[in-house]
């Protein structure tokens, strides 16, 4: 088991390294660079910048060097904990994204928690009470959740919140807390606002996992080993939780990494619509501005989340399913 974990760590690190290369190339792919984007913005404001000035800027930023040299410089910095400098914000990247990353993490993990708690418990209910009224309601809501894109749901919530409660459900803080440092009151205020983005981000995933849980559990409930355990006199609730539910949770756990990546990649657009102080809107802006190091850091961050999610789900699977532990070692 230990060697399996080590092997997984090594492959996770390799993946991250390859991703950093791909990410760096991807950022360079759109035509032009930060200097071009900067010049066109300035010219809209009526300021004319000469070609010489632009070239000087490029040399100063290192944009005149070949791609691989730029990459090595960047990745060398990243490994030493220096994410580079954001030209747009005139601050180090780590400073720009620092607080937003923690908010994104809170958002992603609350969404994950919400998704799994809700999907597993409703899934169990739906399977055990198949074709009951509750099951039908869960099924209909599940289909709606699957079919509706997150940003649309966000817009509907914004509209309804305004119309019925006369309040803005966007953002993550009440106006009085936006620019104050962290405190208990600010944290509680965030929790109060958190449910809207969590609901929006988690809806599709919950619906999907709920369907998976219900279908797998229905299969497992009819398996021989359940009848055999029942024949041993195991009380019904304990029986349900110990045997079929544990089996049915396997595919749900296996998709944890994937679910986390969906939440993270769905976050930018929803974050924009709900005007959240998360990394989402920042990421989109960085791409538009061609703010290279900022965008690169964000891509790296998102990918790390996916890799970590997959890693966690692999480890969890090894813990809950003995067959996973034995497969490689034998």
């Amino acid at each position, binding site marked *: 088991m230990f060697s399996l974990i080590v092997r997984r760590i090594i492959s996770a690190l390799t993946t991250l390294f390859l991703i950093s290369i791909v990410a760096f190339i991807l950022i360079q792919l759109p035509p032009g660079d930060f200097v071009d984007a900067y010049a066109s913005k300035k010219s809209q404001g009526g300021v004319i910048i000469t070609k010489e000035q632009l070239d000087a800027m490029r040399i100063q930023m290192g944009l005149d060097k070949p791609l691989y040299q730029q990459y090595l410089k960047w990745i060398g910095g990243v490994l030493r904990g220096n994410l580079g400098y954001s030209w747009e914000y005139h601050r180090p990247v780590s400073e720009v994204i620092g607080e937003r990353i923690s908010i994104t993490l809170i958002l992603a993990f609350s969404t994950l928690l919400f998704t799994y708690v809700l999907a597993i418990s409703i899934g169990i209910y739906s399977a055990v009470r198949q074709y009951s009224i509750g099951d039908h309601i869960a099924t209909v809501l599940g289909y709606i959740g699957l079919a509706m894109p997150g940003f649309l749901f966000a817009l509907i919530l914004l509209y309804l919140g305004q119309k019925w409660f006369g309040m803005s459900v966007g953002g993550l803080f009440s106006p009085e807390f936006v620019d104050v440092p962290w405190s208990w009151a600010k944290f509680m205020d965030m929790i109060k606002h958190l449910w809207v983005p969590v609901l929006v981000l988690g809806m599709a995933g919950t619906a999907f996992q709920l369907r998976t849980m219900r279908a797998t559990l229905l299969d497992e409930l*009819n398996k*021989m*080993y359940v009848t*055999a355990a029942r024949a*041993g006199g*195991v*009380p019904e609730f304990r029986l349900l939780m110990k*045997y079929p539910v544990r089996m049915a949770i396997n595919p749900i756990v296996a998709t944890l990494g994937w679910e986390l990546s969906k939440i993270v990649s769905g976050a930018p657009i929803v974050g924009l619509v709900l005007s959240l102080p998360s990394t989402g809107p920042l990421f989109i802006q960085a791409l538009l501005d061609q703010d290279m190091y900022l965008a690169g850091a964000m891509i790296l961050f998102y990918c790390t989340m996916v890799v970590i999610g997959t890693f966690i789900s692999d480890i969890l699977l090894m813990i809950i399913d003995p067959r996973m532990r*034995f497969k490689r070692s034998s």
Partner: protein
Amino acid sequence: MGKKYLLNVKNLNISWRLDKASVPIVCGVDFSLEPGKVLGLVGESGCGKSVTALSLMRILPKELKIEDGEILFNGHNGGKTVDIAKLKPKGEDIQKIRGGRISMIFQEPMSSFSPLHTIGNQIIEVIEIHKKTARGEAEEITINLLKKAGIADARDAVKRYPFEFSGGMLQRAMIAKALSCNPSLLIADEPTTALDVTIQAQILNLMRDLQREFGTSIIFISHDLGVVGQMADEVAIMYMGKIVERGPTKNIFKTPKHPYTIKLLDAIPRLGNLEDRRRLEPIRGTVPGLFNRPPGCIFHDRCDSYMSGICDSAFPDLREMSENHFVACYLYEKGEMDQ
């Protein structure tokens, strides 16, 4: 009847509830079992043997309902008789009986253990539930049981997972699990069907030895008359949810009465017959579907002795031919008309 019964099943009716109809699966089955005896329940696939067995523990799939009948069980030490058919299938009373007073060995050992838990865990659980023993003690009991069931490295085996066992080993483990709480009744539902022939013999010997040692009564279900002949004191032949013949094993094999029993015995391959080159006699036709049960005697459309106007009128009653030997067939209605 002055005899003391461990189990007395009377007029058991089980049907399969569909949206608009209900299809009879078991139709008025009667049998009884004395303490310490082995009853063989024989029939083709789908004749209701397994359903009958599952109903004795109230672990039928939810589409199947006991419509009528009594399952009188006398296996409590206090001597109180319980009607299992009247218990709530999810209630505490039946849970105490399951695994404690009646236990079951299933057909497919490979799929009858949870792949996520160790063998030890799944046996210890049963002991803890019924005997309320501490975990360490339950583990010792389990190791002893596994040894008795012929698993050599029992102390190591409790820590292993089902996928590390062979089918024969798992069946031994299942027997150990079934006997863990000294049940008065053991139901073995085709316990050797999924195993190799050599392993079959070992498992049957093991069951017979343990049955003698523990004094457990067994209901042995099989479609294999040869196996039943070795194990059972009494045999009941089922066809389409009804018992058509029932009696001491010797009588059933030596002087079978019901045309279906006679045909079943003719269909057994025997080594000695290889030289005669006798062809095996298959039973004509196939078992009718559940949705079109023939009227009258359910076997009449496959029977060579079919008597028009009699056999298709109503199902014949079970009639005692000799001591404890019952048959349901119009051929014997007059009593003295033999064969």
